[in-house]
């Protein structure tokens, strides 16, 4: 708690009410709030969330920009702060849409746990603000707070399962409802 109050204090010093109207509002505090309310970090010790907020990096994307490119090295997870993103997989030369994500959604969370190349792409459909967390940051923080490891891994797996279910449902819906040929072949 001391970390929190101190860091907040230094933030308060520099951003009076008048200043917070322009773009100099304290980033650390607002990112901290975003993470604290996210599904991954809610309920964790505030010092830990604070460190994640400190080590996370903000990124802005224009409409159509790729946040994740299939085949690139996966080194960070994303949480959407603003805007919408489409997840797709390129299969035999065509991009197949899997899901649409919105503010507050996490994606790429597996990158926190392991090294691999991205198996999907993420494209901004509007202007997008995202907060990214590098795997290295995740590892460093858990080195310091090893007790949190089990909880975080469990939540990452839960996130992944949720994603898998919704993406599978989405694809099955499309096959069953739209594609008559596919429907025929299933029977």
């Amino acid at each position, binding site marked *: 708690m*001391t*970390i929190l109050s*101190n*860091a907040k204090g*230094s*933030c308060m*010093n*520099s*951003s009076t009410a*008048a*200043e917070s109207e*322009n773009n*100099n*509002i*304290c*980033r*650390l505090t607002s*990112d901290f709030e975003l993470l604290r309310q996210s599904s991954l970090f809610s309920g964790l010790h505030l010092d830990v969330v*604070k*460190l994640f*907020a*400190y*080590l*996370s990096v903000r*990124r*802005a*994307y*224009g409409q159509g*920009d*790729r946040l994740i*490119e*299939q*085949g*690139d*090295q996966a080194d960070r997870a994303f949480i959407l702060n603003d805007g919408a993103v489409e997840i797709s997989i*390129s*299969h*035999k*030369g065509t991009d197949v849409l899997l899901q649409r994500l919105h503010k507050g959604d996490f994606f790429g969370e597996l990158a926190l746990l392991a090294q*691999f*190349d991205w198996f999907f792409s993420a494209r901004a459909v509007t*202007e997008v603000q995202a907060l990214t967390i590098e795997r*290295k*940051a995740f*590892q*460093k923080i858990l*080195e*310091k707070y*090893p007790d949190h*490891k089990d909880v975080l891994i469990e939540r990452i797996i839960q996130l992944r399962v949720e994603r898998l279910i919704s993406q599978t449902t989405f694809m099955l819906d499309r096959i069953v409802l739209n594609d008559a040929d596919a429907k025929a072949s299933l029977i």
Partner: protein
Amino acid sequence: MQLTKRPLFYWIKKRYRALQVVLLLVIVVGLFFRVYPLEMQRKIINIAINLKMVDKLYLYCALYMGAVVTAGIMKYLANVLESVISQKILIGMRRELYQHMLKLPLPFFHRTQTGTITSAMTAELNAIAAFLGGALAVPITSVLTFAVFLGFMIYLNPLLGLLSMIIYPFELTVIPLLQRVHNRYNQKRVMVVRRMASVVNEAAEGIHEVQGNGSFLLEQLKLDRLIYRLYTLAVRLDILKFGIKFSNNLFQSFGPFILFLVGGYLAINGEFTIGALVAFLSAYEKVYDPWKEVIIYYQSYQDAQVRYRQIMELFDYQPQFLLEAPAADSPPMKGAIEAEAIGYRVKESIQLLDDINFRLEAGQHLALVGFSGSGKSTLSLILSRLYQQSSGSLSIDGQPIEMLTQAEVVAGISTMAQHPFIFTGTVRDNLLYASTALHLAGLKNELPEQREIFETVTAVGLAPDVIRWGLRSTIPPQRAEPMIPSFLKMRRIVQQQLSKEVAQAVEFYDVNSFLRYSPLAVNIMFGNYGIAHTTKKLLTNQEFRTFLKDQRLEDPLLEFGLTIAAATVSLLGSFSGDDFLFKGSPMRPDQLKNYARITDRIKPGDSLAGLKQNERNRLLLLSLKFIPGLHKITTLPKRLETAIMSARLRFLQDVAGIDIERCSSGLPQSEITALAVESEAVPAKTSFTPFCINHYLYSRTLQDNIIFGTVINRDLVREHLSVVAEQALRQYGLMDDIMEIGLDFHVGSKGDNLSGGQKQKLALARALLKNSPILILDEATASLDNSSQTRIQHYISNKLRGNTTVIAVVHRLDMISEYDHILVMKEGKIVESGTYDDLIERQGVLYELVNSSRE
């Protein structure tokens, strides 16, 4: 003789004989000058002093001193020579051993821990070296010296001389006894140290597992056992060592005891002169020197012998790869392959491959298809000669492979493994790895030319990556110089075409906007100092300091520095030493203590009056290095931002003398009076460069220069920039230059800076550039996206068919129709063999596989 069977003295007897003879001579000459002063001692006392002849005294003293000095110089020379010889021998030993190690069969490396090999090749060899130099000269001279002094003593008084030797036989029996025990412990010590190296090495290599499982105690336990074992051994070794020393000293003091007793008695009775007694005592002491040397020599010989044997035992295998040159008249390999009943067994019983038969004409392409575990990879390893088949025969161009020399095989077959190894070094080093190896072995006359390299890089789809690496490099001034006009033109193009697209990913240098991704110092000056310039240096610039004071910036910056320091100390105070965690602060981990000392005394908001000069500098440095967009530790007050923006204009106009209008429009400046910090000779490269549209920034990457801004999000820029940049590079004829620069990109340790796909493309290009008649690919494109896989497959089918025999383990069945022949494998056997059309028509296993993969 096989390297590992050579005795230790082989190296000494066969190497640098001339130098060793010189060493021996030097030692013998030195020896003479060591005996000579003894004779002078006797003459000084017996003749000069006794007969009171002052001129003789001078003469003898001068001769005495001269001899002592000469002996010293000879000793010095001998030491230097010894060290030179030992290092020279060590070079040869290490090189030959390394070559031997590299050629050992793969199973050796599976069995032996990397740490053991490393420690044997490095520290353990070093320990032997100290012994090598004097290995021959020292014992010879020691024995000589001993004999000479003994002779001198007997010449003075035979009885006394023999008496003083009485103790040596005792020593000769006791000391070797102790030494043998010492050796045994020493041998054990070497083993323990090796195991320790292995444990540490293993933990370092598997650090992911260790940290991932928090198995710190587990690993510690592994090491602890060895540490305590080592402790016991070290103590025992020292007990023995000092025991040897003690007994030696004890024996040694028996000498004077006998001398004084008998010599004194003889002198009192007038049978012996005082001068002779003094000389005798000196000689006796001198006898001790060679004796000591013999003992030290004996110990280090034993020690070296133990270590040497252990190293050689470790590597004592028959090397498998002998690159003897092929016969001059042997025809060039064409690449026809025939496999007859090839089988491969491990541990005598497990049959991994059984009865593999096929025939391939030169230039034909063969696909190996099958379930995982069917033996495809094993077969490809046998074909590339990394494994040896247990039965059956393999021939190339009709010749059994055993008839070919290793050199022919290595040059004739190019292999790309499933998980290729990328070496530490540049992209170029890796691309040319195979060709350079052949070149050095004299099997290939020339390295591939630039054109061929670029073509191959393009064929495997690595070209865009190489261009990107080139763009991300900071180019040395002399290399950049001729291209600068073109770069500046490209900058214009990017500004016109891309400023909208990359707006989110780049912060352009606009004199009227605050640069959130540049340090405050850069924001104030709106420019860069050149290569190797630091913010710390800027602080020593009086002009800049005066400017900060005049603009009333110093105090706000100091206050802000204090805020940064306080926030960093409070958030990261317990994480000192971790670079990664400090990336959100301008402070370096090693500076934490210094700043903590400041913030302990003075808190943000306190008066700054109590700050010492060096503390002010520290805080100012922190503040000037603060990058608002990156350093999340705190937020820049809006007031300070505004102050910096107005100071910037003053700085550009008043201090740097720049016309801001011209700077941003690109019209030539009348003259820029740069802040002169560095040498005046090359002002543009090292001194201040403003962010003017027509100034090249030497300290920035090419990409920064072309974009004329700071790249915030590399991935996004890549997407937009690559098309425009490639086009422009081609337009200005700079593509080759950029590719050349990109080839010098450092891939990191074992290729850590590369993605899986990049590694695979690089390894494939490396295999292609080897230009061998036979190419073996084991899932060469598995990590690549579909379009890259297809493109590479087309390249292989179109360009290589007819010239290169290709055998490929293929996992994507939609591409196998491009192969001349297909082998379908299952459980180590061939279940189907034929052309694609035949096999599909037959509706067998392949048909099933292809259809199931389509669904």
